[in-house]
């Protein structure tokens, strides 16, 4: 049923329905096909697409081919074929609405001078965060990028804690020491927002290594924790991506590499930056499945995510999933977003993942308008309350400045008086000389 979501590198134009017993993808066997790269509506400015096609007959033109066309044909025929239950649908809807409302509120607060710095909003990409993270257990880990607010929210970090962090307050999830691009939650195993391209992938690989280590070296046979590494299309040209695909496949680590391909690395079109824009193909090259999915469709993302996460839990190793998505706003709130073609923006705006889920649920009688409205209202209140909470929270005190530099405060060293500096009564007031 969702075969169109799983794509394999081998023969094109052969489609085989997937049996439910079988794993969704097998790196050695081609189960499905229809490898379609959506691509940007903005054509590369150099005249290369025909040349490339000439060299590689399997390669598609880089002009726009919407995957939505394919997805639309795959509508479930009866209620028994529904991809989700009502409860699941409502959870997904709520999470996506939370992501969207929260980010919209961030924009407001930024322009109102409540938060500063670089703030990267997730609008448009919600299907990826929700589709993946809502399948995780609390013990599973998530590693994100600088566009990390919504990943943290999906993983269960409260809107209050994230908003407060953005306001730079002590009640923030990192006590105001992290900020927009560095959201962490030990409780929820959010291992961080990483602000440099690619640097989170090795950390995620390390978390997956811990799962394997606990199972095999520490004898915790039931440790089946999975790590999700989120990153964008721009990252897929960075060495750490390739290095970690290699190591994760080599050691069969329980990790899923989730590419949120929103087609743009700030102002660099994916097609201008990448020799072969089909990122999912790099999975099989490293000996792991590569899957291409419509990232504007939460149900399809979820389908793929389910199998990728299951594979990881079963100890069968990593999966590379390329989610074709789009950001509705500029790269950050500081980006005037002048470069992207309005037609391209309109094309994806029409494929808003939240609207699509709403439509799906109503058409399939999984929920009615009133129920969904109630969720929206609830989320509005949650976000409003988060702002009030953040606003009312205290700014960090001077003493906080020096805390947390070293986990072991003795690392602050020994002062001229022979005492550890951390034992200096002035230390916590932040006035001790360090």
């Amino acid at each position: 049923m969702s075969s169109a979501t799983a794509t394999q590198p081998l023969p094109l134009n052969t489609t085989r329905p997937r049996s439910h017993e079988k794993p969704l993808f097998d790196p050695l066997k081609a189960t499905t096909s229809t490898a379609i790269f959506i691509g940007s509506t903005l054509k590369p400015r150099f005249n290369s697409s025909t040349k490339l096609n000439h060299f590689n007959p399997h390669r598609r033109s880089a002009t726009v081919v919407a995957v939505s066309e394919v997805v639309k044909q795959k509508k479930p025929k009866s209620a028994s074929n529904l991809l989700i239950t009502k409860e699941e649908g409502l959870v997904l809807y709520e999470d996506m609405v939370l992501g969207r409302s929260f980010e919209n509120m961030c924009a407001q607060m930024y322009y109102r001078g409540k938060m500063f710095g670089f703030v990267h909003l997730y609008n448009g990409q919600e299907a990826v965060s929700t589709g993946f993270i809502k399948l995780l257990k609390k013990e599973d880990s998530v590693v994100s990028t600088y566009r990390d607010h919504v990943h943290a929210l999906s993983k269960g970090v409260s809107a209050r804690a994230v908003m407060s962090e953005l306001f730079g307050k002590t009640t923030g999830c990192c006590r105001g020491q992290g900020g927009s691009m560095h959201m962490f939650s030990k409780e929820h195993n959010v291992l961080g927002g990483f602000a440099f391209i690619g640097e989170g992938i090795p950390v995620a690989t390390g978390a997956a290594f811990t799962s394997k280590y606990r199972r095999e070296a520490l004898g915790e046979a039931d440790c089946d924790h999975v790590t999700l590494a989120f990153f964008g299309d721009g990252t897929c040209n960075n060495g750490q991506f390739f290095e970690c695909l290699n190591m994760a496949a080599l050691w069969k680590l329980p990790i899923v590499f989730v590419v949120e391909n929103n087609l743009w690395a700030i102002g660099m079109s994916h097609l201008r930056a990448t020799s072969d824009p089909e990122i999912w193909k790099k999975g099989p090259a490293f000996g792991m499945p590569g899957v291409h999915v419509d990232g504007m469709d939460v149900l399809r993302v979820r389908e793929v995510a389910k199998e990728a996460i299951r594979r990881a839990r079963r100890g069968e190793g990593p999966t590379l999933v390329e989610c074709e998505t789009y950001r509705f706003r500029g790269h950050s709130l500081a980006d005037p977003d002048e470069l992207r073609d309005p037609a391209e923006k309109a094309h994806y705006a029409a494929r808003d993942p939240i609207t699509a889920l709403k439509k799906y649920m109503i058409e399939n009688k999984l929920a009615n308008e009133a129920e969904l409205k109630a969720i929206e209202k609830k989320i509005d209140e949650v976000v409003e309350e988060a702002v009030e909470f953040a606003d009312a929270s205290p700014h960090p005190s001077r003493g906080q400045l020096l805390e947390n530099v070293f986990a072991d405060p003795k690392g602050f060293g020994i002062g001229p008086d022979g005492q550890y500096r951390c034992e200096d009564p002035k230390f916590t007031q932040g006035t001790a000389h360090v």
Partner: protein
Amino acid sequence: MASIFQGLGAATVLTPTNSIDSKKFHVSPRRSCSERKARFLVVRSDGSLNMRAHRANKLITNAVATKPDGSVASTSSSKPGHELLLFEALREGLEEEMDRDPSVCVMGEDVGHYGGSYKVTRGLAEKFGDLRVLDTPIAENSFTGMGIGAAMTGLRPVIEGMNMGFLLLAFNQISNNCGMLHYTSGGQFTIPVVIRGPGGVGRQLGAEHSQRLESYFQSIPGIQMVACSTPYNAKGLMKAAIRSENPVILFEHVLLYNLKERIPDEEYICNLEEAEMVRPGEHVTILTYSRMRYHVMQAAKTLVNKGYDPEVIDIRSLKPFDLHTIGNSVKKTHRVLIVEECMRTGGIGASLTAAITENFHDYLDAPILCLSSQDVPTPYAGTLEEWTVVQPAQIVTAVEQLCR
């Protein structure tokens, strides 16, 4: 100021053999030189810049341990403790910690089956398995990041840079994640990793393999740095670094791996933040670390013969500095000479000079002198390489200048 000493020293005659007290355990640091000689390893180093001497002693221009004479060896069985080389001491510390705590693991290039480029992890893969002693692909930034991710989720990885210089490829992970992540996460995550490996200026290894990285790493917030210099402190610092909740960079020196010393059989650890008094004295405080300790001790012998009584401190903790020990010494001698292999610009010596000036300026009777290696890419040619790092003769001259 210090630069005037760089070219000096050729005229100073140094004896090629020196005895070094590299142990604190059951020997009072106040014991006399002659007692030491019988008991401790012998380090040969030729500090002379005299070209004829250089050619004649080409292989002993560096601090490399040789076996003590037969009388010491023959009595060794009756003494407490056991004798081993520095790389074996590191290995012993690592092995003990891996025995003690199953979350301690090793990762790096060729640390497993091959046993490490300097054999620090020899035999550990056989004992602990390939997962606990993980051979990684050649991908420094990624396996260092992997170690950080593992540390965040409960393991205590020891990450080996096959050569310390290779860790420049992991600089982003070491700086952004290793150093800062505890802080940016608001204290939620700790990164109890040890990053270690062979570094320093070796013997004609060329620029890239002869780096002095302390200066590069020292300003990363949240990272502790220690440098080992004897088998005794190598083992003790290795164990302490593994147990620390802080990320620790442990500097080893390629030319010190074969130093031999008797170390106690009983378990011990060293304090990461503590300097080591190598030779108490009255006239001048010489602060040094790692391999330069041996050049200093060689110079100290000459200085003693000339009637000086230098106090030699191996600062060991490169970040933070043990200003307690250093301060007490400054208050006693009122003169400071820093001898390091680090880069002159922005190096450990520069930071140390600043820290001493800030804290103990009133106790100083003379400006602090700092002998660093030259700000050049380490040259290949033996003569040029020798002129790059500080030689004992320069230390003697500097002390004479300071105490004038």
